[in-house]
């Protein structure tokens, strides 16, 4: 037998999916329709799905394979971005789609899935490799995992992997419990906890930016960095997800997972080798180094907010409590901000401000690294208020929507006087490399199917990030807020500005 495929050409061929079957629990849900199926179709279009592939969808709605295929076709046509829909490619691809209706609490559902998998294996020769994707409501995670174990669907001749969508628990204790239950059925190396932020090209580019260039890393520490601001703002409200969001809130929904992972990516030490274990070890070490607040520190270092009704662009928008499915007395945070410190030699004393909210003025996610001012202010900056000490350098890593990197520095204003003004040097990822970027789900699906967990979160990372937010959740749970405390369309509550002012800083306007 030959050792390696002599026809491979890694310089030109993209990684592709190995022979396998995916079982998607919650296949009639939004995530499957909007993200998973368009991502799988796109992989097929790019010749990255083999003949030996099958996808088995499951939900409660009774449907035939044909009905399911038609429904998925409509979803792909509707939600595929920047890609043509090729009828002949779809015709081949849809032959790999199967459907099993059934209640996840009913053992017959799993027997039916087993039967369908056997059928798919027979027809498509998937190598008996199976990926289970939990795209259901989180309350079903435990049941599905347990049932997969009971039906020995966690073992076979090929590999078995499981993808778990966030939230991984709703607090530290439940996350720990979910991890334990998962490990009773699947070993950690087969568990892929998906945080789609880590699959974004621009988040991955942070690693390239930091560790592929020699000029930034020497500045990347407490000696030169004054403070870091991470913003994830949404201009929309809860958009029909009021009932879900009411149970989650901004701290759980965004900061505990996405933004702490982004913070870890920005601040982690360089891995010795760029592989899954080393990269995740460094991320985990950083998350463990984030100082955990004492309960009495929470009011000083964390701010909760909830938007009230306001007029935006001449249109009246409802407050959170007026949204459908939301308790009129809701105490849920639609805005959360925190001041975090990393207790290690590189970052000791540098405040990391993180904020996330709904109904803010615009949709933007970015990381702003503010450097120290020069030790001696020789020049003055022209402002509307007259000359003043110049603003320090700012490096902004933009995640969305205008992915890129900007560096603000000072330049002499034209004219005879020695006045300076800030200018921005921009690298625009989307336009400099205007090529269509793979969606986060395309990247992450290929990763899990090829067994690369680099961009997935590990048990210790999940628990470390819950440890960071748990004291805040505990204090907020026992507190009655005077909500709403910010108008829709503004940058959040006044208390958030005051939190920074106590450290001598102000939020920048993204």
């Amino acid at each position: 037998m030959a050792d390696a495929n002599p026809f491979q050409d890694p310089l030109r061929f993209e990684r592709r999916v190995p022979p396998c079957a995916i079982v998607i629990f919650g296949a009639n849900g939004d995530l499957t329709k909007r993200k998973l199926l368009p991502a799988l179709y796109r992989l097929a279009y790019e010749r990255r799905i083999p003949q030996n592939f099958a996808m088995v969808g499951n939900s409660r709605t009774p449907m035939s394979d044909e009905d399911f295929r038609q429904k998925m076709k409509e979803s792909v046509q509707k939600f595929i971005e920047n890609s043509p829909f090729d009828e002949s490619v779809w015709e081949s691809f849809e032959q790999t789609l199967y459907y099993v209706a059934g209640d996840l609490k009913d053992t017959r559902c799993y027997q039916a899935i087993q039967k369908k998998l056997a059928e798919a294996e027979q027809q498509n020769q998937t190598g008996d490799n199976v990926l289970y994707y939990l795209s259901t409501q989180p309350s079903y995670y435990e049941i599905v995992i347990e049932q997969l174990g009971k039906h020995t669907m966690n073992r076979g001749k090929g590999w078995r992997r499981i993808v778990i969508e966030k939230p991984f628990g709703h607090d530290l204790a439940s996350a720990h419990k979910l991890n334990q239950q998962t490990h009773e059925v699947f070993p950690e190396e087969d568990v892929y906890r998906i945080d789609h932020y880590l699959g974004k090209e621009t988040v991955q580019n942070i690693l390239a930016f930091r560790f592929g260039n020699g000029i930034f890393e020497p500045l990347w520490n407490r000696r030169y960095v004054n403070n870091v601001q991470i913003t994830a703002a949404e201009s929309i409200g809860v958009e029909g997800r009021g009932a879900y969001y009411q149970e989650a809130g901004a701290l759980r929904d965004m900061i505990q997972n996405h933004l702490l992972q982004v913070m870890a990516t920005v601040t982690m030490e360089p891995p010795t080798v760029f592989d899954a274990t080393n990269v995740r070890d460094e991320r985990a070490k950083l998350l463990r180094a984030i100082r955990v607040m004492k309960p009495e520190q929470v009011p000083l270092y964390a701010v909760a907010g909830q938007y009230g009704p306001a007029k935006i662009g001449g249109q009246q928008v409802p407050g959170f409590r007026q949204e459908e499915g939301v308790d009129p007395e809701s105490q849920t945070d639609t805005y959360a901000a925190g001041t975090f410190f990393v207790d290690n030699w590189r970052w000791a004393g540098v405040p990391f401000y993180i904020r996330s909210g709904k109904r803010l003025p615009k949709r933007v996610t970015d990381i702003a690294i503010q450097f120290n001012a020069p030790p001696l202010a020789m020049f003055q900056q022209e402002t509307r208020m007259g000359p003043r000490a110049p603003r320090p350098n700012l490096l902004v890593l933009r995640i969305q929507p205008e992915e890129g990197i900007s560096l603000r520095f000072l330049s002499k204003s034209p004219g005879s006087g020695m006045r300076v003004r800030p200018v921005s040097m921009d690298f625009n990822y989307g336009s400099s490399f205007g090529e269509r970027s793979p969606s986060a789900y395309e990247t992450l699906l290929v990763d899990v199917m090829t067994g690369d967990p680099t961009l997935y979160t590990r048990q210790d990372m999940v628990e470390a990030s819950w440890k960071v937010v748990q004291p805040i959740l505990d204090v907020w749970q026992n507190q009655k807020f005077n909500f709403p405390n910010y108008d829709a369309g503004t940058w959040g509550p006044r208390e958030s500005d005051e939190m920074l002012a106590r450290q001598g800083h102000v939020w920048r306007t993204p």
Partner: protein
Amino acid sequence: MSSVALPAQPERIMKELARVWTSLAEEERHQGGPTVLRACAMTLIVATDDEDEESLAASQTLTELMHAHPSRAIVLRSSDRAGEGLSAHVFAQCWKPFGKAQQICCEQIEIAARPDQWLDVGPTVLGIIVPDLPVVVWCRQKSALRSSANDRAQVGLESVLSLATKTIVDTRGIPVPEALARMREWKQRGRIVGDLEWTRLTPWRQTIAHAFEDFDALSELKNIRTVEIAYTDEVAPASALYAAAWLENGIAANAALRREEGFGPGLHRISLKSGNTSIELERTGPTCIRLNVGDKEQQISMAGSSLYELMHEELTVLGPDAVFDAAFEKVGEIRS
């Protein structure tokens, strides 16, 4: 934005470029917009001439390429209709990415010269390439691959090619022996050369490579005895020769080339057979290939075959390409 014709002297061109940028920035400022963003990842030189029937399509492709590979584009046009002396036009290609406020601009310089004045092109180009970034020459002059490099035009072009990090040609429609001989000459001088006829094979090659990963094929490799490559052109195009060479580098069997009716131009079918199984790819439409592995069938997209996509792929591979080099070497053996 365009400018009047300038004498093609590097300093005049650079001065005009600076003027274009200043004027763009002022225009944006007057409209209350943010400043324009200059993007540049390479110098992309397009050498073309009167024989280039698809120069309009190429020009459109160049504009599209700017989005993915922002460049200082230098279009060198050899034309009998050009005036006395070298003349240059300077443009900025600008666009606003969808939904974004900032305007992104790349530079374009067009230089026209009569064939007998091409000797003077090299020194001008040398003065206007972007420092410290790769220089790619997209050579669309068929004559460059056909005739000997003795006349003045060829010597002029050689002076441009000598600046290139990579030269991209398209041997489609050019007598293959002459084209390959010229490419071999360039490669022997240590130059990196890409051929769009090779790039056109990517969907075929990728599908074959994948097929050998899936079915227990790797162990079947040594049993493959029959390799057939069919094309629709009158004579075997370079893509068919490259495909044969590439396959022969991986399989201990000789490839048979033949002409067949079908979708074209270029490759129509590739089939590999052992005693136990067969892999066959057949073009079934302008953008589709049918793959049969044994009795299993799959429709494969040929996405990646437009001029833009071919150039885009070549521009992402700026360094040495070991797989192409090995196939290119093998083509020599097949032909001899």
